[in-house]
């Protein structure tokens, strides 16, 4: 009898969950900008992941000699060739993969680290909160970009180093966000009830508080992917990021300023790709936030 009741309750809960997700999805599909963003992102994904299956070219193969360089778009090279005589379209595919991968991994890691620190600070309060938030404030007050460069120049120039650099300076806003949520959530009855029946702090944090911050964190990660892609591109543009021969949209622009006179299209493609992708993430993230809770401040 009791088990039946529990099962019924569970069933109810899951159908409630479904209706919440369903409602968010429904609102999302009616959000014009979010849909525009989704279309942009899907097109970009197709371009980056399906593109290489259609256009099979080696992004690193160089056509030797002067005649291979700066070729205009042609049958053999739909987007022409770059300063090393490499196929630009192929580099756009593989560079895009790198940029998207870095953006995704660093945004997710930054969010998780921020959530962890925010949960600790919000749940424990007191000196732990003070210490962690002072640290967060200090990190926030250091101008990000010069330090990104400094750290990148110190840590080396591999992909994982870049990801680490972006994460080190990307977790603070999530920490503040989650701390605020945790502060208000821990006052709620069900958390008090969990504490009353002797649930451990760890359990309360991860089983009760964390799931309730997920919706907000998904939004912040979505927008975070966009800004991580811009960070990667900026670092690589200055020459501290992804190193040739590996391509990223950022490092394809690295020497671009010199080509402004003779091959301006080399500047247009990668930048446009970054722009559309970031715009897509921003549109979609904004729509997601509106769909989850229009009053949410992020």
């Amino acid at each position, binding site marked *: 009898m009791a088990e039946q009741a529990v099962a019924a309750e569970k069933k109810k809960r899951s159908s409630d969950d479904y209706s919440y997700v369903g409602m968010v999805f429904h609102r999302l599909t009616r959000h014009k900008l979010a849909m525009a963003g989704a279309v942009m992102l899907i097109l970009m994904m197709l371009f980056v992941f399906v593109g290489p299956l259609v256009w099979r070219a080696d992004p690193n193969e160089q056509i030797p000699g002067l005649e291979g360089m700066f070729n205009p778009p042609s049958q053999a090279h739909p987007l022409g060739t770059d300063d090393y005589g490499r196929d630009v379209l192929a580099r756009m595919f593989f560079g895009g993969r790198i940029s998207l991968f870095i953006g995704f991994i660093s945004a997710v890691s930054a969010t998780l680290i921020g959530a962890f620190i925010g949960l600790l600070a919000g749940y424990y309060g007191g000196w732990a909160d003070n210490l962690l938030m002072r640290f967060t404030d200090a990190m926030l*007050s250091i101008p990000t970009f010069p330090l990104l460069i400094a750290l990148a120049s110190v840590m080396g120039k591999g992909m994982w180093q870049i990801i680490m650099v972006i994460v080190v300076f990307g977790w603070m806003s999530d920490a503040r966000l989650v701390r605020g949520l945790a502060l208000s959530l821990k006052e709620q009855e069900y958390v008090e009830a969990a504490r009353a029946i002797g649930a451990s702090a760890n359990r309360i944090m991860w089983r009760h508080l964390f799931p309730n911050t997920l919706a907000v964190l998904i939004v912040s990660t979505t927008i975070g992917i966009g800004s991580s892609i811009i960070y990667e591109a*900026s670092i690589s*543009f200055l020459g501290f990021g992804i190193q040739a021969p590996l391509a990223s949209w950022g490092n394809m622009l690295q020497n671009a300023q010199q080509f402004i006179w003779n091959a301006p299209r080399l500047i247009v493609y990668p930048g446009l790709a970054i722009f559309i992708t*970031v715009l897509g993430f921003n549109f979609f993230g904004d729509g997601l936030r509106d769909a989850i809770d229009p009053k949410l401040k992020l």
Partner: protein
Amino acid sequence: MRDYVIRRVLGMIPLILIVMIVAFAIFSLVPNPFAALIENPRIKKADIERLIKAWGFDLPWYLRFFKWFSGVIKGDWGPSLLYPGSSARDVIARALPVTIRVMGIEFLLSLLIALPIGIISAVKQYSVTDYVVTVFSFLGMSMPTFWFGLMMMMLFSVFLKRPSGAPLLPAGGIMTPGLEEAPFWTRFVDQLQYLVMPVLVLAFSSVGSWTRYMRSSMLEVVRQDYIRTARAKGVPERLVINKHALRNALIPIVTLVALSVPGIVGGASITEKIFNIPGMGSLIIAAETKSDYPTAMVGLMLTSVLVIVFNLIADIVYAWVDPRIKYS
């Protein structure tokens, strides 16, 4: 009030210490900061030895930190390695006015454009105007500034030419060489042309985010009950928005403005680099990449300290504009 400020100022000290340690730690990770100098044939070996000693690189890191720390406190920021013969302080003093001019103009221009647009966009929520403004804000916020800078350069310095064949706008720098002694208005017009592109590029993205901030703050306020109260007592719509709503909506904006002021000093590294502007942003990047650690550390530290100071100013301004906040 006084107690509050004193307490906050005292609270800044550990923050500044952390920032200094972080700045120092990052540069301490470099195995040999003098490697670049050794490769430079114009610098004598003995000079490098002297620098290593002066910077305490023969000491363990904690002693080196104290050496640097006491120097910074005393105002001795060390020599610039990038510009031999100048001190780090001179180098920064040269870059600062350049950055403040570009960033200051950009900052004021952005606010002047963005705040009214944000208000209109919020008041006419869901209108065509609002949609256009929203889309443009997102375009600005998603634009990689370095790419936008290059595109602008392509447009104004490569494709668009004056009848004389010269580019419509100069591609980089801050003034035409040789005009240093020209009459004021000639210099003014000349330097203005150099400002157009960097200011536009930076403003495009910051107008985007300021518009979003203003819009969402205003939207938050116009659905408050007290706005309905104002309408219910017969306040004309113009005053409902410009007095009752705006006064509330500006509270968070004023704080954000105060928090953004340090950015004016820190400069915009990439835009400065692209447009070849000798300001703080490009100086710090150059100092970092060319191993001019005294300049880089001090530059970083200065901007960080400014951020901390303006955090305090923002809080004080916040308490000043919002009667609900008490200093306690």
